[in-house]
């Protein structure tokens, strides 16, 4: 029976051990840069994701040869590109697409890396050995080159294929990280107790071990999110990413491969380049705050 005293105790315990979300928020509030970053990033994302409400994508993609390469003006805030398409509209859609893809890759790779890492760390022994040898090998592959090669040889190339290929090369480090923590965790009493009680392994892994590693996963995912967005835009920039019909920030920047555009028509590519830069910095500042929040010794708050 829970007495009033127990309730007080639980409440006190909760106050001393606030949830991760609460600690993160407290940490961000105390770090001015992180707070500014969060507000800025949310502003950018809300604008980008709500843009389909006031931008007609069909009209945006329509080629209009009467208005090619127009400098920024009142009708076209950031000018137009080679097909007379509005750069500002493409910038918003591009931000949305790039962020969505970066986030999908992070989540898919995160889930996969988490599962493999948990299996490797929970079972240990030869299972761990085999998995680690495979990961050791995958880590020494020149991944950017392999991603490009896969993109070229996949028969029906689509956005989904692109996301899966990128994810396929993004999970090793996560798996390794989870595994090393998992190995330490599996020696602890609560796991042994659970094993003795006969709990199935998968249940122990996902419902008992995972909650204790969740902060690690969240920190790692926030920090890799920026990298994944960078890689997506970079690949699209090289011409191996999103098709032209789905604008990414990389699509706009790829105009800059032409020296004339790079030099004289900077309104096409420069805003997208700067926007990527701002987004990456924001995500990293937030990521560092999240990282500090997960480690009591580093907290500022």
């Amino acid at each position, binding site marked *: 029976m829970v007495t009033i005293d127990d309730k007080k105790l639980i409440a006190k315990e909760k106050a001393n051990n606030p949830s991760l979300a609460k600690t993160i928020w407290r940490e961000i509030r105390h770090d001015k840069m992180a707070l500014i970053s969060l507000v800025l990033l949310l502003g950018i994302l809300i604008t980008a994701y709500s843009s389909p409400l006031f931008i007609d994508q069909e009209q945006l993609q329509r080629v209009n040869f009467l208005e090619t390469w127009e400098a920024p003006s009142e009708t076209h805030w950031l000018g137009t590109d080679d097909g007379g398409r509005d750069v500002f509209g493409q910038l918003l859609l591009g931000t949305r697409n790039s962020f969505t893809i970066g986030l999908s890759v992070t989540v898919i790779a995160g889930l996969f890396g988490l599962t493999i890492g948990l299996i490797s760390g929970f079972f240990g022994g030869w299972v761990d050995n085999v998995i680690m040898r495979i990961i050791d090998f995958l880590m020494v592959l020149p991944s*950017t080159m*392999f991603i*490009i090669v896969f993109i070229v040889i996949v028969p029906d190339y689509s956005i989904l294929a692109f996301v899966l290929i990128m994810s396929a090369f993004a999970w090793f480090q996560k798996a390794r990280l989870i595994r090393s923590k998992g190995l330490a965790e599996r020696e602890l009493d609560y796991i042994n107790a659970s094993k003795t009680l006969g709990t199935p392994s998968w249940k122990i892994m996902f419902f008992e071990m995972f909650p204790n590693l969740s902060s690690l996963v969240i920190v790692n995912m926030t920090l890799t999110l920026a990298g994944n967005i960078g890689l997506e835009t970079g690949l699209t920039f*090289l011409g191996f990413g999103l098709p032209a019909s789905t604008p990414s920030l990389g699509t706009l920047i790829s105009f*800059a491969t032409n020296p004339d555009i790079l030099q004289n028509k900077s309104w096409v590519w420069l805003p997208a380049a700067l926007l990527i830069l701002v987004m*990456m910095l924001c995500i990293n*500042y937030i990521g560092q705050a999240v990282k500090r929040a997960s480690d009591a010794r580093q907290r500022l708050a």
Partner: protein
Amino acid sequence: MVKFIFRRMLVMIPQLLLLSLIIFVLAKQMPGDAVTGAFMGNPNVTPEQMEKIREEYGLNDPWYVQYGAWIGKAVKGDLGDSYTHKQPVTSLLAGRVVNTVTLSLFILIVSYIIAIPLGIIAGRWADSWADKMIITYNYFAFATPLFVFSLLMLFFFGFVLGWFPTGNSVDVRLEAGTWDFYVSKFKHLVLPGMSGALLATAGTIQYLRNDIIDTKLKDFVKTARAKGVPEGKVYTRHILRNSMLPIAAFLGYEITGLIAGSIFLEMIFSYPGLGQLFIQSITGRDFTVTTAIVMISGTAVIVGTMLSDIILSAIDPRIRIE
């Protein structure tokens, strides 16, 4: 130690075999084979003739025979012929490899020249204003995608200010071997090199800073201070000796990043190296070249990682136990 080196080198053999097998399978999946690539759109070559050439090149053999033949040749340095450039891949790559290695070395050296002093300052005077500035720079270097930064550098220093040439690895009008030739080579190297180096510092600065902050609280440092060793010497003789060694060992691990970076840098600065050739070959469907470049890069990473592992284990015996 010898045992460790031997075992570590033994691991490399299956890695290389697996790498070559994967690359071979991928090469087979690439749309169109070497013969279609060479003769497609050529009305004088009938499908029957193409089939005959395929037979001659052994393209109709079972995959393991082809793989064996390919590996056998590759070990001897014969990586096949490029169909767009009409020359052996090996000779096509030779000049490119030199350019990419030069660029990579430049990036490595400059990034260490920048990162080591900054890392030491940030670690020694942690939380000072200098440290805060270095951390800010480090955030920037860590977060900025290389291709965005390179484009901005090219735009600003190459076009707006016009300080540096904006493409190629040397002024083609100059004669090879002359003084001007080397000066021009260097000038072409600076912009892509600095773009790579300024971002490549992130890892080293962060590692050095954290390591120095950790080390300076250790007992042996306190002992040195207690003995009256001057503060400067505490750093040079005691702390840095510990913190700097692993940096040398990380060299091999850097190769992965350098290869990925070379693709973007060389494409943006039209610098004729392996990365640029890789993209050109893949868009031109010249897959013999693509395969060769991936194989070379993969081998470089595998060998580099092995060297790093060995150096690290020599410095830190704890790593050897496993």
